[in-house]
């Protein structure tokens, strides 16, 4: 439990910093406020590191102990009473869940956060709201750590929204500019659209399970990955009989054993999976909810590095990783397709961008898409591994761009750069390392892989995607499935191309803007984090042990099930995190093939894996081709591209890509305009129809009562009359000539009429009986 305590301390330290800075940050001023924030987040990193060391060294010989390769920690707290059903104890719970993935995420987040804090000390030094910046950063660090620590989906949702809040506050940090506050609103609202899906998914899960801790979820629905279409999953019930427990599992709908027990169909599971994934689509900016991320670049660059590259936007991938066992093959396919569209689209758009941060933003989108593909094709390890390595090199690239922007006095257009490597060499070299890492530079020599961090994770994903695509096409899925391998492959070439373009335009060639070039300089407080991140981007794939940790996390979960939930059926029931291509049958159904059974024999996971391994050998070419081509085209600054763009169709395509395929215009013209139109309509309806009806009624009654007049007094109810009298007396007491006594009389009269009517109704009613 030491680990849990350490991690909780690590999560709470930034909260302490937030509270301190919120109340006395202003008095501390520059740079003390920043140092306090940095100090606490550094403490958080040390705690995380300590937790990792303890976790790795925990003795798990007994098989029951916590720790690496052993068992995860789950500790829940009752939060809100809701009443008992299916798998809950009568409470909505929050809680912590710690496995190797949590530990590795903590170390990554706190490390990147600490480096970004240090960088910000320099980058934000001249800002007048310096302390506010660190206040928000601290709140973000806390929220992000809370999200990763979450043991129930409800807690994940809570911190999910909190990181969204921090993102909103930081994107709109320079709120004096309309563009910044617009971008902030856009980010929050688009995320909320995704959150509707999250809420629906959560609601459906709540409906079926009652409470949604992660292990409960996996325990109840963990077979989804192997479920075929039309099957029914029977849920384990708390306190159910042994006979009930025996039929928990997967059934065909024509077997009636399950009907008296809570159960869920695969169609419903697919819906739940897609619903929760909608949340991830918002946070990880997947198509079609990707529009907020490029605009989010309005925020200060360190924020882009921490929140919009390394950590928060990866939370969507993390969420999919956590709900992975309950995703049906159909839901996974949906995820893979969305990821594929996002990845391809963003990579193409990135080629045409001229703002250095926008290039990186689209590159982030593209890489997130790749991670989603990984999840969709069942490469759980690959996706999360890439999450970690990407965090390092993308934080590096963003901070590098920050260093460039700082040097260039907030100029972000690459057309104004050029030749900067002479002025800011540390930035140029480290940025170059980042480019090589994202391009996946590396080679396999005699079975040994040597390369930058991105090489390892991207390779793993491509391998699994290749295996999946081969398996799917060979179980009758049609050749379209091959795209899930070939598109990531092609995009790897494109990635190498546009990232090299970015480096060439910024650092190489001749200076295109003399003024920018003259004033450019860099400071140690900013390039030291860059150097550290560059080192991580080189060794992140191998030396840090991210991959073994993630692989261990899957194993730990399985251990948990074997030891706690289903000791009797150890290893049989829980499909868990095993990759989808190990269960070819699962896909065969969703592909609706006639000759599935026949092909299954020849199509083994081992063959698929081997096939993916073979395919992926083409990948190394990507960086050679991509980097080489970009190096060639941009070797003379913008001269050659300008020549190419004289060709009309290429120019058109360029403009289309430059404007990000016109998604913003589409949404502004359709979704936003429609909402505003609806709201105006509602407002008009309110004033001229509903309220008009009310006024008309009032007018009619008043006229009518004036005619009937005093005659109604006879049937005035005592209560109302008394009320009216009291009203008059108080009115007199406060001496209020302007109240208009006539109005009070009218009121009393109207009331009298109405009460008279009411009395009549009562009399009639009592007669009816």
């Amino acid at each position: 439990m030491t680990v849990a305590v350490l991690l909780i301390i690590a999560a709470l330290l930034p909260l302490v910093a937030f509270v301190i800075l919120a109340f006395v940050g202003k008095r501390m001023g520059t740079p003390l406020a920043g140092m306090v924030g940095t100090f606490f987040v550094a403490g958080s990193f040390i705690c995380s590191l300590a937790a990792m060391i303890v976790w790795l060294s925990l003795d798990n010989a007994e098989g029951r102990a916590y720790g690496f390769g052993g068992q995860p920690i789950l500790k829940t707290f009752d939060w809100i009473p809701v009443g008992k059903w299916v798998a809950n104890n009568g409470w909505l719970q929050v809680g912590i869940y710690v496995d190797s993935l949590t530990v590795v995420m903590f170390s990554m987040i706190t490390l990147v956060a600490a480096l970004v804090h240090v960088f910000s000390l320099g980058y934000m030094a001249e800002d007048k709201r310096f302390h506010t910046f660190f206040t928000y950063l601290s709140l973000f660090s806390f929220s992000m750590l809370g999200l990763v620590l979450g043991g129930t989906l409800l807690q994940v949702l809570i911190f999910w929204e909190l990181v969204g809040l921090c993102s909103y506050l930081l994107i709109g940090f320079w709120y004096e500019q309309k563009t910044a506050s617009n971008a902030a609103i856009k980010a929050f609202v688009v995320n909320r659209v995704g959150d509707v899906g999250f809420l629906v998914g959560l609601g459906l899960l709540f409906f079926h399970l009652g409470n949604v801790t992660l292990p409960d979820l996996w325990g109840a629905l963990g077979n989804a990955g192997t479920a075929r279409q039309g099957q029914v999953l029977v849920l384990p019930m708390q306190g159910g009989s042994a006979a009930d427990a025996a039929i928990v599992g997967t059934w065909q709908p024509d077997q009636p054993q399950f009907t008296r027990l809570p159960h869920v169909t695969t169609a419903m599971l697919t819906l739940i999976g897609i619903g929760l994934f909608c949340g991830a689509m918002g946070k990880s900016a997947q198509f079609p909810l990707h529009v907020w991320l490029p605009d989010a670049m309005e925020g200060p660059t360190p924020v882009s590095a921490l929140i919009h590259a390394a950590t928060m936007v990866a939370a969507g991938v993390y969420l999919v990783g956590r709900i992975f066992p309950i995703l049906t093959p159909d839901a996974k396919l949906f995820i893979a397709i969305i990821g594929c569209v996002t990845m391809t689209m963003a990579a193409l758009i990135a080629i045409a961008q001229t703002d250095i941060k926008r290039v990186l933003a689209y590159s982030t989108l593209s890489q997130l898409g790749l991670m989603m593909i990984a999840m969709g094709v069942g490469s759980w390890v690959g996706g999360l591994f890439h999450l970690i390595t990407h965090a390092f090199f993308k934080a590096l690239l963003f901070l590098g761009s920050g260093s460039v922007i700082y040097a260039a006095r907030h100029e972000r257009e690459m057309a104004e750069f050029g030749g900067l490597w002479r002025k800011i060499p540390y930035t140029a070299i480290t940025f170059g390392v980042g480019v090589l890492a994202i391009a996946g530079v590396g080679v396999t020599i005699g079975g040994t892989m040597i390369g930058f961090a991105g090489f390892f994770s991207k390779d793993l994903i491509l391998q699994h995607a290749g295996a999946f695509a081969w398996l799917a096409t060979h179980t009758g899925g049609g050749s379209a499935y091959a795209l899930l391998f070939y598109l990531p492959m092609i995009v790897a070439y494109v990635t190498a191309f546009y990232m090299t373009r970015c480096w060439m335009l910024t650092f190489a060639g001749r200076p295109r803007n003399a003024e920018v070039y003259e004033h450019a300089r860099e400071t140690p407080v900013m390039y030291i984090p860059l150097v550290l991140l560059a080192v991580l981007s080189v060794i992140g794939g191998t030396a840090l042990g991210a991959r073994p940790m993630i692989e261990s996390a899957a194993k730990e979960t399985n251990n948990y099930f074997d030891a706690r939930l289903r000791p009797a059926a150890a290893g049989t029931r829980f499909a868990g995190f095993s990759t989808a291509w190990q269960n070819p049958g699962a896909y065969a159904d969703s592909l609706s093939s006639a000759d599935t059974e026949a092909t299954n024999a020849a199509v083994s996971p081992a063959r698929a894996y081997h096939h993916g391994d073979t395919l992926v050998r083409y990948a190394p070419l990507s960086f050679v081709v991509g980097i080489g081509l970009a190096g060639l085209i941009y070797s003379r600054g913008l001269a050659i591209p300008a020549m190419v763009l004289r060709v009309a169709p290429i120019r058109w395509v360029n403009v289309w890509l430059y404007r990000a395929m016109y998604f913003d215009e589409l949404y502004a013209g359709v979704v936003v305009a429609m909402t505003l139109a609806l709201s105006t309509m509602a407002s008009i309806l309110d004033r001229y129809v509903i309220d008009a009806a009310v006024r008309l009624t009032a007018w009619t009654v008043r006229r009518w009562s004036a005619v009937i007049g005093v005659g109604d007094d006879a049937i005035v109810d005592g209560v109302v009359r008394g009320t009216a009298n009291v009203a008059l007396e108080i009115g007199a007491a406060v001496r209020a000539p302007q109240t208009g006594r006539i109005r009070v009389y009218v009121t009393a009269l109207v009331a009298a009429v109405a009460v008279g009517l009411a009395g009549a109704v009562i009399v009639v009613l009592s007669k009816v009986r």
Partner: protein
Amino acid sequence: MSFLQNNLLTLLILLPAAGGILTLITKNRDAVRWTALATTLVTLCACFVLLLTFKWRPDAGATSTYAYGGGANAATFGVVQMVQQADWIPAFNIKYRVGIDGLSFPLVLLTAFISVLGVVASWNIERMTRGYFALFLFLEAGLLGTFLALDFFLFYVFFEVTLLPMYFLIGIWGGPRREYAAIKFFIYTLVGSIALLIVLIGTYLFTRDPATGLGSFDLVQLPGLIKAAVARNAMSMTAVRWFFVLSIVCFLIKVPSFPFHTWLPDAHVEAPTPVSMVLAALLLKMGGYGIFRVSYPLFADAGRELWMPLAIVGVVSIIYGALCAMAQTDFKRLVAYSSVSHMGFVVLGAAMMTKTAASGALFMMVAHGVTSAMLFFIVGVVYDRAHHRELSRLGGLATTMPLYTGLATVGIFANLGLPGLCGFVGEVMVLLGSFEAAKPDSLLVHSGAATTHQIYPIAVVACLGIVLTAAYMLWTIQRVFLGPERAEYRQFAEVDQREQVVLWPLATMAILLGILPTFFVFAFTESTVDSLFRLFAR
């Protein structure tokens, strides 16, 4: 001590009323203000004394029942406690009867809490201070009476009594169109009251004991009596349905829900800031409270049959209120429409008839009490300085008034349902509860009143409300606080100490309610909601 214990609830109602009379005979303005403040503070303290004697949950093995507390039977736990009663009009079996349970307790606390802040917010009322504070305190007495009354007749009287002070508070101390707004508010809610009057008289007539000829106004006994009347064919289901509809209409007007909400924006726009706070935070809650105290316990069967119209009213209020709020150009009108939207969750939560949704609705009332009071005060702070509320002319206040902006942001985010703040818990509970209602063994589906496929779409559409809420709330922040500092607002003073005295407690409560919802609300409501659903299922 036992005298105090036995009469505590009555004292609670009398305290503000006595304070009100005291203010009337006080001469100078300062004395009036301090008397009012002291009165509300003493009332709040009295509420804390209540906590000491309140029994939270049944003993082990006992089940909670919707009945009077105490009694010899140890196996049941009557959730309605500290009951005090006396004959009032014996000829019609009308009693003075007050008591407290999980439905009323949070609202009593809320009333006492908001009243204190309301007095502080009213500190600078210039005109006819004495009359103002007297009415304010009478209003508090009426509200407490409504929440504590257990006799239908008494409840009705208090329900009406609150109308008058509110009428005058708007009509005398309000804005330019105050008379129109006040009379609209008065008549509109009075029409609702007539519907309730019919129910009041009707239930009495139908529950007449064949032997004695006396009916009942006892809100706790009536559920059983009405069931018995239906069972012996003294009352038809048609009558039950009509009574349910009539009472619901009365409370929907008060809540207010679409399409009965148009009095609210007018009333708010004209009302002075503190009156708006009380109106939104407390008066609207009488509607929600009535739904849970009268409509559902008494006519649960009808409520089950008519769940769909009510749920649709709730969902439409959520969406329609949000859309209308988005279109407003007046800051205060916008907040008023957001009240319509948020109170829609209360209606939806009631209609879905699950424990989760009902608890969520009860929580939402408290949460909305805190956030709406806060938002109206925030509007008031701007209005005091700028003397207008046009959103298009505001902007850049974040630079001028950073502390105010910070506190306002807490309030606005609490209102839009950010986790960690109070709005989230209510919304998410109602939404989860709505999904829960689709379960095969839920009250609605099990009884055949609804099918799973009818409930899902309603729940999903309600979820969409969170997007619209976020959109208009953030847009408001942008228009009021963000953007470059404006020259004309540069000399605005930061919130002063008095204003902070109002804002800090509200902000603190918004955070505490969001983090410890069980401690502050569900601990009260849990056993009562439990007992209510036992009643519904019977």
